[in-house]
């Protein structure tokens, strides 16, 4: 048997072998992607609607706090004992964790838009949908993507815990490693899942860089002397919008 550490054993990187690191990584990404997509489909329309109309803002403001207070392991155990083992209950639990940060950030993003710009948009003859998609959404992106980042990290983290409920994913390495006293496996799992989280975090930051207008981030804009102050303020603002995620 190969005596090198678990993380570096070639067999553990063979994607065709069930339970190998690539296999678990793919499963982990699958759960994460599925939960985030379903969560977005639920939370975005509601968040946009609340942000655009200003109705029900109490819900949107408090969703984030309430979501953060939910103990992930408790939520997972609860859903599994109620719905049984399997993929669906776990994804349901993960979706419950995605919705609050997306709801809060899409609402907050829309609300953070300069009311003068919205007034001007309406005054120039944009329909309500045009106001939302051409003016409010592009300006809300930095805050919204901050919420998405939070949600993705939360799900990557909780999907690790989901191995406890019998699911695949990188959490398997941690849970099985602990059960077997195979600490090499535990460390391998921890390293890969941490690397995955940091990589996804960077990816979202990169997407943000690409899709947010330089007029909002101030990135790469020529510095003209009289407006240097305004520019710096805008740039600092966008850096601060990277709200902390939950580990």
């Amino acid at each position: 048997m190969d005596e090198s550490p678990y993380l570096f054993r070639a067999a553990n990187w063979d994607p065709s072998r069930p339970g190998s690191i690539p296999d678990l990584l793919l499963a982990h990404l699958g759960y994460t992607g599925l939960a985030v997509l379903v969560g977005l489909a639920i939370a975005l329309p509601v968040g946009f609607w609340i942000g655009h109309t200003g109705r029900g803002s109490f819900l949107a403001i408090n969703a984030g706090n309430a979501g953060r207070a939910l103990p992930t392991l408790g939520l997972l155990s609860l859903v599994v004992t109620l719905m049984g083992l399997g993929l669906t209950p776990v994804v349901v639990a993960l979706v419950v964790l995605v919705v609050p940060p997306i709801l809060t950030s899409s609402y907050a993003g829309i609300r953070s838009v300069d009311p003068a710009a919205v007034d001007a948009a309406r005054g120039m003859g944009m329909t309500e949908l045009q106001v939302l998609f051409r003016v409010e959404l592009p300006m809300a992106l930095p805050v919204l993507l901050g919420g998405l980042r939070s949600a993705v990290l939360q799900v990557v983290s909780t999907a690790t815990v989901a191995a406890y409920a019998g699911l695949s994913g990188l959490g398997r390495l941690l849970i099985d490693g602990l059960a077997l006293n195979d600490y090499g496996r535990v460390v391998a799992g921890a390293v890969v899942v941490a690397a995955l989280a940091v990589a996804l975090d960077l990816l979202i930051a990169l997407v943000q860089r690409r899709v947010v207008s330089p007029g909002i981030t101030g990135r790469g804009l020529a510095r003209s002397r009289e407006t240097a102050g305004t520019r710096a303020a805008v740039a600092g603002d966008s850096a601060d919008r990277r709200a902390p995620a939950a580990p």
Partner: protein
Amino acid sequence: MIQYLSQNGDAVLAALRQHVVLAVLPLLLGALLALPVGYLAVRFRWLYHPLLNVSGVVYAIPSLALFVTLPFVLGTRILDPLNIVVALGLYTLALMARTVADGLRSVDPQVVAAATAMGYTPLRRLVAVELPLALPVVLAGLRVAAVSNISLVSVGALIGVGGLGALFTRGFQLFWTAPILVGVVLSVLLAAAADLVIVLVQRALTPWTRASAGRA
């Protein structure tokens, strides 16, 4: 649920007590350490962006991964509560250091200039002017840290030390919802209580923010 509570009251209480300790101890340690770190990131501006990045990376690491890795780094046993305290302390430090820096940066530079002009030494100015004015931002960050710490402690149950998390693993093994519900409700209530305490502390410490909010 009620039945479960009446039969297992002592065990639940012990779990709750452990939960509070495991959440609050790292909160205080992390926040205290964050003060000098956050201050340095403001004092030396070039430190600010590296701090943001490091804080982001630490916060991205999944909690279970951190819990199980720490014994190898610290040389502790896997069941040692110290692992949880250090892990949550790190998260708190990562979040609070940037919050302290943001708080200090949020202080009106004109007020700082006025304090300097009146003859405050830098240290006295920091303690008497800048820190109090940064409090609303700092305490807002502390609320986030407190609530997420309380929610994260229970993940520790997977390595045997998790306060109310023990109720989750127990319920899961027995496929019994009662202990899980009790744990979730208590955990959420604990988070709400911690949040409320910090809000009340903030009210007491920063009466001027209330005055301006009342006028607006």
